[in-house]
């Protein structure tokens, strides 16, 4: 990790979301949700393969997922998926140079145009949509 010779901040510095505002939170959530989704995706493919074991195998597997814990995990997956998707769209636009502001002579005190309200709104909406979707998912799953 933080290598003394290179004095790199290491993973701790990379994931620390506290110092640099919401953009850094989005960065972290994007990574976590990406990894989370990948893990789920692998699990999901393994899960669905149980269908090859016929109805019994499938139902056994389904039973495992349809516990409270299973539902909770699924709810988180939904949230991750929505956040990752919405924020992913924002990130792609940003990476293409959309909404990152126009170059202009900077005047002191310097306020970076790329750290603007549009992208902040994008991040907040990703988080809010993710929360709504998660709640909706929970309602559907626990509601029955």
């Amino acid at each position, binding site marked *: 990790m933080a290598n003394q010779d290179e004095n790199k901040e290491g993973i701790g510095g*990379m994931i620390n979301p506290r110092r640099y505002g919401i953009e850094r939170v989005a960065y972290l959530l994007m990574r976590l949700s990406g*990894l989370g989704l990948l893990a789920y995706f692998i699990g999901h493919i393994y899960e669905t393969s149980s269908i090859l074991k016929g109805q019994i195998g499938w139902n056994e597997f389904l039973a495992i997922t349809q516990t409270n814990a299973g539902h909770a995990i699924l709810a988180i997956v939904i949230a991750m998926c929505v956040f990752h998707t919405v924020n992913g769209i924002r990130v792609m636009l940003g990476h293409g140079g959309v909404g990152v502001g126009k170059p202009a002579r900077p005047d002191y005190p310097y306020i970076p145009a790329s750290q603007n309200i549009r992208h902040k709104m994008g991040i907040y909406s990703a988080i809010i949509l993710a929360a709504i979707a998660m709640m909706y998912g929970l309602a559907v799953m626990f509601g029955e």
Partner: protein
Amino acid sequence: MRESIIMKIHYGTALAAIALVAVHILMRLTQGFAESLEYDSVIANYKFLPYAGMLEIILILLSIHGFNGLRVILLELKQGQRYEKAVSYGCVAAMITLIAYGSRTIIMVNTGMT
């Protein structure tokens, strides 16, 4: 491969996946979540060729996207020629394995080999 091509694929797969995953999930919701997971309805879905095709495409797109994402994170975590080579090939291998494994399910169910 040039990094720009890889990353264009990364973005491209993400974009394509948005639409398809939406369909995939909406199927769950329109059919009613629990019912859609009944063994028979699942089998029926798989047997419906366009749907199975879609699943196959999602599988490929997201495997590419996901494992490339993983590769990116791993490349940034640590550097070194051997490590980086291992990460690149490892991710491709994992990707292929996952696609193969998932395809096996889809193809076998679709062709009625259960």
